[in-house]
């Protein structure tokens, strides 16, 4: 009825189109023929590499993110550290509280950036770019691995900025410290990003994702002993502390930083007591392995989830 008179109008709009079409197109030039080879391990490596590289390019272009994600660690380090110093001077055996918190802060900064890196997969989905990657003739696992490695690299680069602050908290530099811290940060960032990507496979809205991550990551960070020694804790907190994977990243980090300081035995014992499981003190190597193993397991789950999602 009302649609019928459209006939004449629609017919007339047809006219200018072909003419305009000819004018809008540039003259044809030489065609470059491209052949896409069948899938091989080399194409998978290339895919992982480019997804990883994209994270770095984006990090480099997103200066705001670099600045904003520094705020929280700096608050903990300088405001909390300086503020509580007066209360705790007696029990830290003369060690500046900032120095004590520093290893914990090195861990937090990585945790929060890793979380943001993982969130980018949710953004990618929201802005459609995830689809471009998902329809490529490569394994989903290559995309997920590239994404997790990229996120981990970005988070540890961010961590390097905090490493530059070591002098401000009375920690002298050494090659061992720099490489050790970077290595531990890379490991923690990897696990956290893998965890985030695993969550991102299920939670598709950015608001809910950030909410869930805050809900999980913030308690994990508080319980981990980043801000307190994990020695004489009340029973309930000690149990939670041992169950918290972050504990096994914070303790090696603190051990590494303290190895660079001249601390009395009493101070070391009070501030960096060994992590124990039912009285057995867990070797640092096992702690580091725990973080790595959990990261690999979560990466595996993330890959499985994204591969199944058709």
């Amino acid at each position, binding site marked *: 009825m009302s649609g019928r008179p459209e006939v004449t109008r629609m017919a007339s709009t047809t006219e200018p189109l072909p003419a305009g079409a000819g004018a809008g197109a540039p003259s044809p030039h030489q065609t470059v023929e*491209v052949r896409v080879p069948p899938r091989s391990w080399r194409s998978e490596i290339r*895919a992982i590499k480019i997804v990883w590289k994209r994270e770095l390019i984006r990090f480099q272009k997103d200066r705001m993110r670099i600045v904003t994600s520094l705020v929280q660690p700096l608050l903990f380090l300088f405001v909390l550290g300086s503020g509580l110093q007066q209360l705790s001077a007696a029990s830290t055996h003369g060690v500046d509280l900032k120095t004590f918190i520093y290893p914990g802060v090195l861990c937090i900064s990585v945790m929060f950036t890793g979380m943001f890196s993982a969130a980018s997969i949710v953004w990618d989905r929201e802005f459609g770019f995830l689809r471009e990657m998902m329809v490529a003739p490569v394994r989903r696992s290559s995309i997920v691995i590239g994404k997790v490695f990229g996120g981990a690299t970005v988070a540890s680069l961010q961590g390097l900025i905090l490493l530059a602050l070591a002098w401000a908290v009375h920690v002298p530099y050494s090659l061992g410290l720099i490489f050790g811290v970077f290595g531990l940060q890379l490991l923690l960032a990897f696990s956290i990003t893998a965890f985030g990507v695993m969550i991102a496979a299920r939670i598709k809205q950015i608001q809910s994702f950030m909410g869930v991550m805050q809900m999980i990551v913030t308690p994990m960070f508080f319980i981990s002993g980043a801000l307190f020694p994990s020695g004489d804790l009340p029973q309930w907190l000690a149990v939670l502390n041992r169950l918290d994977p972050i504990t096994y990243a914070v303790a090696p980090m603190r051990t590494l930083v303290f190895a660079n300081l001249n601390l009395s035995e009493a101070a070391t014992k009070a501030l960096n007591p060994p992590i124990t499981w039912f009285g057995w003190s867990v070797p640092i190597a096992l702690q580091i392995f725990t973080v790595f193993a959990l990261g690999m397991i979560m990466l595996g789950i993330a890959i499985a989830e994204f591969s199944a999602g058709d």
Partner: protein
Amino acid sequence: MAAITVKDLRKRFGDFEAVKGVNFEVASGEVFGFLGPNGAGKTTTINMLCTLTKPSEGSAEVAGYDVVKARDDVRRHIGLVFQDQTLDGYLSAEQNLRLHAELYGVESKVVKPRMEQVLRMVGLWERRDAQVMTFSGGMRRRLEIARGLMHSPRVLFLDEPTIGLDPQTRASIWGYIRQLQQTEEITIFMTTHYMDEAEFCGRIAIMDGGEIVALDTPEALKEAVGADRIRIETDDDERAIAELGERFGLEATMSEGAVSFAVADGEAFVPRLFAELDVPIKAVSLSRPTLDDVFMTHTGSTIRDAEESSATNRNRAVMQAMHGGRR
């Protein structure tokens, strides 16, 4: 060889059957159009052909490969331009294309020349270093088309490639499509709900309610409708309508200030109309059937209705995206 062969393809989402067994073949080098209101099953069909959705039943071959059994082989040979944009706004145009080339494993030495070719084709070569977030909607769509062509696909899928674009950009996109047909061995499969664009396709399948209700060249489809449309302006429209009904048995309606009706062989009818109608006629216009009429004949709804419902569909799609319905 056929570029696309579809046999009794079906897709069910729970109780709802979105695609109810479609059959068709697209020849190599053809521009094939899918026409229909949103919700007709066009996008679901395209998603199955692109290996994004698994068919519930039936089979489809694209570029000679089965979409389920040889998913990767299909993906290597197709280019995709989606309705929603899938570019990385933080990257430059060049970086977006390079990323695509790497993901598709395009040989390193041809990446650069191919990129130049496709970017020049869509007129974005000069803007290759600009961040995509600074691009207009039309530029982004052009870049997406360039990207879809980076790996020389055998079949290019375009899902509503011109939706929401200004007439000029639409025209230039059609320019690229024609140019592609001449310069590359490529089959183009597209969906649209713009009638005037469907005219440019070699063949059109009209889809409605999950089924293909008509499939032929635009000319043949229009011929099959048979009736021409005549509009007359008279001194007394009401009497004219009554008389048309009594004398000729024609069902005429008022629209936009004129009496409008459909009749077979309109050119021969006009002289009779002047001779036999008692109401003085001030003006007359005759139009051949358009694809709107074809659409009306096969789906029972006008294109305006279809576009209105597609607008609601688009809103729904936005809502879905916000709730993470998209992957």
